[in-house]
């Protein structure tokens, strides 16, 4: 190639490069215009999707290929959904973050989430602050979601802001106490009578430690870092009927006799009775690993841990039981839901609602198809999801009992207790950071002064809350 032709080629490449860059910028603008026009051309929000409507939606959190039965069920359900809505194309994503909160945050900031996107129910504020959630209040009614009247209003309330609904729940849980029934039996304790107060937890933990400590088994486990300690302390305080923050979210409200008593008990379990591992446990997942390996007797948890421990850490369903949160006054609730992207067209929102309704909110279908779950080896009978009330709850409980593959009696005390649920406090993560310090203080320091830890944490929490206003 001659020198001049070569230079021309470089010049053309430069111009093309600049052109492509501007084209890329302008195309994104064009897309925004498209969304706007499709919005204005839609039919009324409250009516279900017309089956003839041609629409495409992307949905994340399709089960990964490693979860074979769950993935197969997802694909089968899409095929069945297509029988009613042949013109709805669902682009399922399993590469998108499902429970990876950091990636989820990054996607929200980059507006790159799917049309219908999965999150924790506690993420509403984050999603709204990022300006990514569509208001679906007008779209959700007893025609589009026939079981709506039976969904626990407390669960729906967590997905509402200023009276507007932004998401639909798919699962939910309330915190409780997971305990190892086999360890209880081996230690001479009655596995059908799990502890219901912190004093009882301490007594039982000591019995387990005294009897089985030589085999590497510990009575109780607690976290002390990564905001997990703060999250657990909040659960414990809720159990005692306390709040961690004032109603308007501006002041810390955890410094009281209940918190001091719980923390002192945890301290004494760790340093006086030695009934806890000397490693306080850092990252989320360590308690599950230890319980799965049969090394700890009890820890605070949500019921979805049971399945995780069996599937990933070799635990046995028969060995695991669940009791209500100690104190039993209120219980921290959590769970998952799907939001709808703000830029979705009305038809995309309708199609998304139709899919979520079919897959997650219809009895005997999707996740509630217990007969199929039993055949596919997916556990039936775990105490979740827990969001139905009234007739739907009765039907769900009957179905669950009929097809149960796990020992439902092991969760009886948890289910029967019906502890009222409560959402996370405002500015939850900030408070968890502060409460982590308190929890790690009692777990890592033999001479910890609980009241000093609490009052210093109160000052810090107030400082954080004031700075964040």
């Amino acid at each position: 190639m001659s020198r001049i032709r070569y230079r021309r080629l470089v010049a053309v490449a430069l111009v093309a490069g600049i052109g492509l860059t501007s084209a890329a910028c302008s195309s994104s603008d064009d897309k925004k215009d498209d969304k706007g026009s499709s919005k204005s051309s839609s039919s009324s929000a409250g009516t279900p999707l017309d089956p003839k409507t041609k629409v495409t939606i992307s949905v994340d959190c399709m089960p990964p290929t490693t979860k074979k039965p769950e993935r197969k069920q997802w694909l089968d359900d899409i095929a069945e959904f297509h029988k009613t809505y042949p013109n709805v194309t669902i682009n399922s994503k399993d590469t998108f973050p499902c429970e990876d909160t950091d990636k989820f945050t990054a996607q929200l900031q980059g507006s790159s989430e799917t049309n219908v996107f999965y999150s924790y129910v506690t993420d509403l504020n984050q999603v709204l602050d990022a300006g990514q959630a569509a208001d679906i209040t007008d779209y959700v009614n007893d025609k589009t979601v026939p079981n709506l009247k039976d969904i626990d209003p407390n669960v729906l309330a967590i997905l509402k802001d200023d009276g507007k609904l932004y998401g639909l729940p798919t699962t939910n849980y309330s915190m409780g106490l997971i305990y190892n029934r086999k360890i209880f039996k081996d230690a001479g304790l009655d596995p059908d009578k799990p502890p219901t107060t912190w004093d009882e937890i301490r007594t039982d933990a000591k019995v387990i430690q005294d009897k089985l400590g030589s085999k590497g088994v510990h009575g109780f486990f607690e976290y002390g870092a990564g905001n997990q300690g703060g999250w657990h302390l909040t659960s414990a305080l809720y159990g005692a009927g306390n709040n961690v923050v004032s109603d308007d979210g501006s002041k810390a409200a955890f410094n009281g006799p209940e918190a001091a008593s719980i923390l002192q008990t945890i301290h004494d379990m760790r340093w006086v009775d030695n009934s806890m591992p000397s490693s306080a446990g850092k990252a989320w997942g360590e308690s599950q690993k230890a319980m799965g390996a049969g090394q700890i007797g009890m820890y605070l948890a949500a019921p979805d841990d049971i399945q995780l421990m069996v599937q990933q850490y070799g635990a046995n369903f028969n060995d695991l039981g669940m009791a209500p949160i100690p104190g039993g006054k209120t219980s921290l609730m959590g769970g998952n839901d799907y939001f709808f992207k703000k830029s979705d067209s009305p038809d995309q929102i309708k199609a998304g609602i139709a899919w979520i309704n079919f897959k997650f909110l219809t009895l005997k279908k999707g996740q509630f198809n217990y007969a199929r779950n039993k055949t596919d080896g997916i556990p039936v009978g775990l105490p979740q999801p827990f969001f139905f009330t009234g007739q739907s709850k009765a039907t769900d409980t009957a179905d669950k009992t009929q097809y149960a593959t796990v020992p439902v009696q092991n969760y009886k005390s948890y289910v029967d207790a019906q502890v009222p649920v409560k959402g996370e406090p405002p500015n939850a993560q900030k408070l968890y950071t502060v409460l982590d310090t308190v929890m790690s203080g009692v777990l890592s320091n033999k001479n910890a002064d609980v009241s000093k830890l609490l009052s210093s944490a109160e000052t810090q929490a107030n400082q954080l809350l004031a700075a964040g206003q």
Partner: protein
Amino acid sequence: MAATTVPDKTTRRHAGRAAGPRAQGGRGGLSRKLSQNLQAYGFLIGAILCFGFFSWYPMVREFIMSFQQTKRGVTSWVGFKNIKTIYHDPYFWTAWKNTGMFTLYALVIGFAVPFLIAILLNELRHARAYLRILVYLPVMLPPVAGALLFKYFYNPEYGLFNRILKIFHLPTSQWLDSSNTALISVVIAATWMSMGSATLIYLAALQNIPGELYEAADLDGAGLWSKIWHVTIPQTKLVLSLMLLLQIVATMQEFTNVFLMAGGNGPENSTMTVVYMVYQYGYRYNNFGGAAALGLFLLLVLAGFSGLYARLNRNSD
């Protein structure tokens, strides 16, 4: 444009050379200069785009975000509010103190130990290549695997370190589970994981020292320490100062090891570093403005160190 914005000796040399034709004759000279350098610009454009998109733009964006807040999808200018928020965070000084301590420990352990190992390796007559590979091996371990391995070693109950201490009837430690020892435990692990690279760089510098200098020192009757002090250190001064700067910059940005080994903040926030705090603001508190403001603080401090380094180097030249 690039030739004037990139403060690099090579580009400065090119710019000097390109100034030649301009001196010879006005506008014709300029267009000739442009056409002569067209290929160079063509090649540069890729680098400029890459640096622009992935390095410079994020920095400018971070600066802008430090003064913005996004609430309910609306981004607004908030002046110094984010900076105030960060400054009044009860853990602001804790994070700086921990970061400073981390850097200090890392310098004491991570700067001196690899240099001493390099000197030892350089003195060896046998098995040098074999030992060099052995020293470098930990660097090949993926950082996550290394961190998790140490986390296991540090376990107070069944970890390797306490087992060894027990064998010798020495008092055991809580390692990562005590606010007194968590930070130093992370530093030890981080140093072990990155020591190989530093050792090899020091070794390369040591091997460039002319043998005659040591021979002359021998003739003068210098001992080992005298040779290190009067020959080795002055001859490797440039590499040592560059490594010092790189280590300060790297350790002040510590995140991975505290995140993986100590759950981030560690017992009683004893391992809360500035970058972990940035992470918390961004990904836990969902306050990207605050995270950006804290990042700006860190950028200024690191820029200060870099400036100091440049100044010291210029003086030594």
